[in-house]
């Protein structure tokens, strides 16, 4: 009797253990694989009825209107996906959130589904295992992207590998008030000469502002005599030979800057205020049509124009990424795909909507779309797309940025 019950008991335990282990086995098949074996139609089907929270920068009424209006309406109407935009002031807040959820063991039902992301945040989140992917290759509209474009395949030099999908392009432009400057300088060297000849009328946002950082990087390229040698992984020796020249240049420049370089505007927004109110005559911007939008809103005088250096300006891509614990991954992929739809990209590029550069390879689009893109109205403050693309130079990998930013704080700000 006793032996029998022990036997039964043991069998029960073994079966239970087997089921448990077997069940656990199933759980270890990651979500990613599930989506790899589904067809796009199946993904669209699963997305129906899902709700999506897209965390992104919320400081522009134009962008908000585009996302909450055009994008949300198409998602609802065509895919029955509900989109909720969550405005944040700073991307690190949602990176922090997802990280906290992962640490707390929340592997599903995450509060963040989709994020507008690039650069440093992408790398941090990718390395911490916070992103779902690789999903980009599953999107039908990815065909419109130029697969050979290394500035899309790499986010600040860090390989994307399908863990985020692009949806717009950015490129640095120099903004100036043509009523005050007349004919703007065309090279970095000319700009430096202009600054020395016109003291107090130029400045750049202090690092760690994103825009200030990219301006300094242009000067880094300038003293390095070109960017080609800098494109690889971080090279401390190389950095140490170039950096001192950069610090010397920036420190020599300080007395000719606004406020004699004793203080730098803390954010790009503050620099924009300075230009608007005539305290300085230049601005730096990552958004080629940003100045035009500000003119349309009345925040810049109508005489504002933009230019790029003959030696080129840095361009990059903005992406969306999906969090590892989102429970609306199918809907997220549908959104990412929709953003790459030529109609959506065209709408986004309209200067009265957002004016954001398209990330599509226009040359590969059907004829009618090519014509549409090429005939987009262009306000006077926006440069022609071919000028921009012919002058586009790549970003450096993140460790270079960190070294430059740290070096600026130590060698320029605190001197």
């Amino acid at each position, binding site marked *: 009797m006793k032996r029998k019950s022990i036997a039964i008991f043991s069998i029960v335990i073994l079966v239970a253990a087997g089921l448990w282990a077997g069940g656990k086995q199933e759980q270890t098949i990651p979500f990613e694989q599930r989506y790899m074996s589904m067809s796009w139609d199946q993904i669209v089907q699963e997305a129906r009825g899902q709700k999506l929270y897209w965390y992104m920068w919320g400081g522009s009424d134009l962008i908000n209107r585009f996302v909450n209006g055009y994008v949300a309406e198409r998602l609802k109407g065509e895919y029955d996906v509900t989109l909720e935009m969550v405005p944040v002031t*700073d991307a*690190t*807040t949602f*990176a*922090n959130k997802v*990280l*906290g959820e992962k*640490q*707390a063991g929340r592997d599903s039902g995450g509060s963040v589904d989709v994020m507008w992301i690039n650069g440093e*945040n992408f790398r*941090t989140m990718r390395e911490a295992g916070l992103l779902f992917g690789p999903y980009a290759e599953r999107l039908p509209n990815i065909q419109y992207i130029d697969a050979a474009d290394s500035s899309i395949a790499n986010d600040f030099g860090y390989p994307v590998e399908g863990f985020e999908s692009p949806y717009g392009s950015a490129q640095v432009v120099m903004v100036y008030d043509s009523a005050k400057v007349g004919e703007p300088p065309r090279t970095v060297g000319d700009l430096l000469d202009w600054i020395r000849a016109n003291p*107090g009328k130029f400045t750049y946002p202090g690092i760690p502002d994103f825009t200030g950082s990219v301006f300094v990087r242009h000067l880094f390229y300038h003293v390095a005599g070109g960017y080609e040698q800098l494109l690889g992984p971080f090279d401390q020796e190389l950095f140490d030979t170039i950096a001192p020249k950069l610090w010397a240049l920036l420190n020599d420049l300080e007395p000719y800057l*606004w*406020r004699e370089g004793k203080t730098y505007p*803390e954010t790009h927004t*503050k620099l924009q*205020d300075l230009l*608007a*109110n*005539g*305290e300085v005559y230049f601005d730096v911007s990552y958004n080629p049509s940003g100045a035009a939008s500000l003119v349309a809103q009345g925040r810049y005088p109508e005489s504002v124009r933009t230019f790029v250096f003959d030696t080129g300006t840095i361009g990059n891509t903005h992406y969306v990424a999906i969090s590892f614990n989102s429970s609306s991954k199918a809907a997220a992929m549908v959104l990412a795909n929709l953003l790459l739809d030529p109609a959506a990209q065209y709408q986004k590029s309209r200067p009265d909507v957002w004016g954001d550069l398209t990330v599509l390879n226009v040359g590969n689009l059907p004829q009618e779309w090519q014509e549409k893109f090429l005939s987009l109205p262009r306000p006077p403050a926006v440069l022609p797309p071919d000028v921009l693309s012919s002058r586009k130079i790549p970003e450096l990998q993140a460790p270079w940025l960190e070294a430059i930013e740290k070096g600026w704080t130590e060698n320029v700000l605190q001197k």
Partner: protein
Amino acid sequence: MKNGLSLIILLAPALVVILVLFAGGLALGLSQSLGYMPIIGAYGFSPNAYLELLGSPGFVPSLLLTIFVSVMATGIAVTLAVVTALSLRKHFAGKKLVSFIYQFPLTIPHLVVAVGMMMLVSQSGLLARAAYRIGLIGDSSQFPVLVFDDLGIGIILVYVWKEIPFIGLIALAVLQSIGNDYEEQARTLGANSWQTFRHVLLPLIVPGILPGSIIIFAYTFSSFEVPFLLGKSYPAMLSVLSYRLYIDVDLDARPQAMAMSILIALFVLILVVIYRRISQHLVRGSA
């Protein structure tokens, strides 16, 4: 017995909420500051966060700035509150309207005041433009820097604007309860307005407005919203510094954020304890 039970029933709900939120929050903050953070797998117990924080280069400038802003804001607000209360207790034409305007700042949220102040006193703000119009300055850069500045002047202005009616109404209530008798007597004895104020009214007002002053000092000391919007990023006021540490992607900075919060809490609590000692001393002294 019945009294005891009814006492508990009356007090318990509110107490539970306060205990859980406040005491619980502080306790959890304290434990996290000492390194007990299961969320990042840290079960340690060490004062490292405090040491790193106190040794970090940003801490002392932040502390000094925060103390400076709080002292200036409280001092100016209290002074102006008493002055305005003295004028407002009289009867004059339009008193009702002026009183209403006087109380206006009480309802305006701090963020709105910060935005309005920025539009008023920045170098391209309304005051600067007026100064240009009347020829005081020739360029916007000649107008003094009052926001995003090293001393937090814009921040001080915001808090002064908000706190004057707060203290002022209390001062008015105190003045009303004092009545005019003491002043009358002082006048008959030959004292002028200033002497009457300094030696008769002021000592009577001070105990009444002291609690309010402590409140606004503590509030300004721990404030976040206004310095977040109007302050320079370095040095930042203490609450802003603690928030930045908290949202840092590097979760190892969390204990430091908690440590900062605990230090701020300790500072204001010690302040209140000192105040209670002093006020008890004053009460005994005047008895």
